Each structure stands twice: as C-alpha cells, then as structure tokens.
C-alpha cells in the first residue's frame, strides 16, 4: 500500500497532465489577420482564346494527309495566356500573366491569391484579358466596398456569367 503522500503526488501529476492537455488544446489563441484588416481572395479557372483560328484545309492539303487523318479544318490546341490585373484605390494589388495549364498549353489558367488590406471603404477594380488582343482588357469590373474587419471578399471569374463575381 502507498501512503497518502504518494497518492497526492500522483494526483498532482494527473492534474498537471490534464492542465497541459486542456490548456494547449486551445490556448494561446492565434491571430490569423490583424484586427483592423480584411482579406481579398482572388481565384478563378479560365481558359483563354485559342492561339490561332481554325484553318480550313484545301483539297490539296487534304490529299497529302493519310486517309484516317483527313478532316476539313485544322484547329490549334494552344490557348492565350490570361492577363489579370487587380487594383485597389487605384493602386495595383496584383498583376500577372497566367499561363494555360497542360503539357500542350491547352488547359485553363488558374490563380488563387489572398491579400490582406485595411478594413474600410475601398474601390476595387478587376480586369482580365483572354483574347488575342495585345492591349486593353476584355473584362473589367469594379466594386465600391466597405470592408468590415475580418471580412473575406472573394473575387471569382466566370465568363458565362458575365465576368468577375464579387462574393
């Protein structure tokens, strides 16, 4: 049999063990973003235009091809890179040329970016070019937002829904 002192020692050990488990299970708190800041998250998947238009083959060109490879037109697989620009209050926040994915460069371009900005009123401007033009943008949307502290403003892009989506 053990004396009460030994039992007390064991109880003390278990108390320290439980305190350590309970304590570090949720303490100390972690601050992911400052208290007076908000987050803008820009993410989309979008395929740019094809690099070249489809080319209709002449009968002479067709005759040079093996019979099993003859088709009326030849279309390139490669896509244009996507040019994206995100501005806040007239200042560029993110500018990039996004390459199409895939070994042949025929997939969608992708991005997933997060930006911490001060909470408050901001003018957010998003622009995107996916065509073969060399200047200017094909899509442009702006939003006057009053971002609350710890607000997450998601910016998506879906061409079939008209372009940028602010969520």
């Amino acid at each position: 049999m053990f004396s009460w002192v030994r039992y007390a020692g064991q109880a003390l050990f278990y108390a320290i063990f439980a305190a350590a488990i309970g304590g570090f299970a949720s303490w100390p708190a972690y601050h992911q973003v400052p208290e007076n800041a908000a987050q803008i998250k820009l993410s989309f998947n979008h395929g740019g235009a094809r690099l070249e238009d489809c080319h209709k083959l002449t009968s002479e060109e067709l005759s040079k091809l093996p019979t099993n490879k003859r088709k009326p037109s030849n279309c390139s697989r490669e896509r244009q890179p996507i040019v994206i620009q995100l501005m806040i209050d007239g200042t560029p926040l993110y500018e990039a040329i996004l390459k199409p994915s895939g070994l042949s460069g025929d997939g969608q371009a992708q991005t997933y970016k997060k930006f911490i900005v001060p909470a408050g009123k901001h003018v957010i401007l998003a622009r995107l070019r996916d065509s073969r033009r060399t200047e200017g943008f094909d899509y442009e949307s702006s939003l006057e937002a009053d971002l609350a502290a710890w607000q997450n403003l998601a910016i998506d892009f879906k061409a079939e829904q008209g372009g940028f989506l602010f969520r």
Partner: protein
Amino acid sequence: MGLLRRPLRTVFDASERILALTFPANWNPILNLGALGFFFYWIVTVSGIYIYIFFDTGVTQAFASVEYMTKGQWYAAGIMRSMHRYASDGLVAVMLLHVLREFSLDRYRGVRWFSWVTGIPVLLFIYIAGISGYWLVWDKLAQYVAIVSTEWLDHLPFFGQPIARNFLSPDTLESRFFTLMIFMHIAVPLIALIGLWLHLQRVTKPRINPPMGLAIGAGLSLLVLSAMLPARSQGAANLAQVPGSIGLDWFYLGAYPLLETLPGQVTWSTAMAFLIIMGGIPWLPPMKRQRPAVVDLANCNGCTRCRNDCPYNAISMQARSDHRPFEGEAVVDPSLCVACGICAGSCPTSTPFRRMSELTPGIDLPDHPIAAIRAEVDAEGARITGAARIMVFGCINTGIIVDSRAANVGVVSLNCTGQLPPSFIDYVISGSLADGVVIAGCSDNSCYNRFGLSWTKDRLAGLRDPHLRGRVPRERLTVVWMGRLGGTALRREIAMFAGRLAVLGPLKTKSHVGRAMDPVESANV
C-alpha cells in the same frame, strides 16, 4: 547524434526518477508511454463511435449536430466529445514523448530500425486523423484548418485546380466534402492501427495496455478535464469572414501558422527533409553493434528457455539438424538479435562451475561470452581484498558500474543483468571470491533490453528458470535498480552492504576456482 541524445536522456531519466517518488515502478508514466498511447487510442475510438451516432454531415448540419452534442446532451455526448478531443491530444503527446525517449535511449538503431521506421507512418496517420477530425466540426477553427490544409496541398503540382477554391465563398462549398472527410477520419485511424501492428512485430510480449492503476488515473484525469473544461466549438464557420482569432489545438496544429505564412516550397521541402531524416536516423550513423548470439548445438538440448526469454523474437525453435535425440534446437535470426545476452543468461549450460570441459553454453554472445565473464569474475575475485569483499555484476547500459570499482569491490560488466546466469552468484559466494554480491541494473521496470530486469528478479525469486540455488545465503546478495543517474546511490548502497557483510563475518567456504566439476554436477547448478 550523441550530443542530442545525452541531454534528452538526462531529462527523461530525471523525470523517471521524480515520478518514481510517487508512482510504483510499473505505473511510472514515463515507462508506459507506448502503452498509454494505445490506451488513449481506444478512448478516442470508443468516444468516436458514440459521437458518430449524433454527427450529421453537411455544410450546416455538421456544426448544428456538434452543437447539439455539446449543449443539448452535454452530460453524455458532450463529455464523449471532450474525451474524444482530449484523448487524441494525449495520444499525440505521449506518442511524441515515446519517440523522443526511444531516441534518447539509442533504441532506434541496429536491429531496432524496424520499429523506428514503421512508427513514422503511424505518426503521420494519427496527425492526419486528428486534423480531419477538426475539419468535421465546421466551426471557425475547422474553416481555418480546411483552408490552410488545402492551400498547402495546392502547392503540389498534382491537382487539376486548387482544392482551396472549394472554400472561396459560402456558395462554393458542398456537403459531399464532409462525407469525404468523415470517411478519411474513420479510415485513416484504422490504417494507423495496421501500422501499429507492424510497429510491434519485432518485439516479444509488447506492452500495449498500461497497468490498471495508471489507466484509471489517466482516464479519470481526462474525464475530470472533460467535465470541467468541455471541448467547445468556436462559432459556426463563415466563409464570408476570415477566422481572425482562433484557439488552435497546438498538439495537432502547431505547424499551421508556419504552413500559412512561409512559402510552399520552404514548408514542403522542410517537411520532406524532416521525413527523410526521420526515416534515415537509424543509419546516421549505423550502430556499431556486437555480433549476434550463436548457438552451439553440442551444448543445446532444445530446452526453449532462450526462446522464451528473448525480448526481440530473435530465437525460434526448429527441427533438430544434428539428429541428436532432442525435440528441437534454438536458431537465432541475426537480423533481430540485439546481443543483449539474455539468452545466454537463461541457458542451463551457462554455468561457471564447468571446469572439466570448456565453458561453451548452448547459446552465447561471441563478443562477450560467458567464459570471458567467468574469467573476469575470477580475476576480480583474486584482486579484491578487505573485510567485506563485494562482487558487483552490473549492466553496461547504466554507464555507472565501473565507477564502483574499489579495493574491496570487484566489478563485472554485463550487456544486461539478464545475461547473468544465477549460478554465477553461487559461484562467487561458494567459491569465496567475494563475501557478497551486488546486482546493479537499469531503474525498476525500465530495462534497456526490456525484460532483463524482470527475468533477473524472477530467476532470483525462483519463479523462472534458471533459478538461484537455495544454498546461496540471500543475506549476501543485494540488487540495486537505479539506472544511469544512480551512481551515488549505488556507491551508497555498496557501502551499506559492506557494513552488513562485515557484521555477518567472512565466508566459511573454500575456493573452487580451478576445481574440476563433473558433468552431472555441472548440469545441476
């Protein structure tokens, strides 16, 4: 590595000694880290099965169902939820301590590489299981965990589109994600269990259940914690908001702030490098180990004692290959043998009284044979003088034995106390090589070679073959289990023992060193 191991070992040895002040030897938590890990695993399993009854998968249903458990049924499902969380934290804590302790004791190199390497995926699976569990609650912490985890995975070039896009905004998240996560949360721990089975394949009689007293204490402490500080959710997840301030579970999520802030190349490279180093540690550098035990068939009668005593499943009994009329013969698997010598200590032919023939036991260590131990005993016996001459048989893993050598104290090092056949004690006393014998080894219940200490105790108590003969005066024998930090205590114990021996007076026996023994007498001792 030694520079890392030594301070760590001192910390563990000191903790063990402090806890030994209050815990009985077999209850000492430091000596039951692996078994406690299993115990917490079972608590997690049982509590998990219970709360799964109430859990609902879905973007809104998940949080609501967990809230119901915590508030609507706080006395049952709430307690179970808390036990589930705290036991999983306890599991990680004891698992990490177990890894560090085995590292500090240098029990991860040589043939022990298998247990070390198979333990690494178990660690990973337990972490994945725990992290996926936090995801399921779908509170702010879950939102943070989900986003940081998927963003980290998205650094890998495997995924067609970023997984983290699923958490872009409230309308992008689908309930089927929770179905996937609950599947992971159940499947991964089961895979971990298979890993644990593999992890224990090379040890005999693994201790997977803690002693009842320790289990009750650990279980009660978690229960009291669950009642006093129930696990609570941190507000429903809302993807329109950043979970700005969250209470992280640092046991599982301690690296998350780094994953979030450091570049993906840095975190992935670090994680991969860490895994590679962990996997390669047993060979950094390789252990210079003694040669494995060898069987001498001429002296092996297939008694099975060595097989029964081997702590690492290194010995098997196989059909006799020399056609002698015995049931089997011992066969050593060199890849499993750690050269602890416990087999030699158990062999009935390992008797120092054998003089007619060469002292070659049925099984022995080529680098530290029984014959060499006898020669050392004879030499030390001839050297020591005084009123109370003492022969110390000590385990080299304690590192303190040699310091005890004195004019009246002879010291014989063993690979493990289990290497000592009890007949050596008889040999010393009956041959008047010393007035008393001290056996010094690792601290109680903490044998470096797992069973050396237990088998020695049982052999001395006559509970396990080979027994210590009844004619040996027990007052001339003392055992000291105090481990690496017990140098001072060992010297004190030797001094006190010398005092007791002086009172008893000199032995009235004659030296048998050099005396021939017939084979029958030899076999009986």
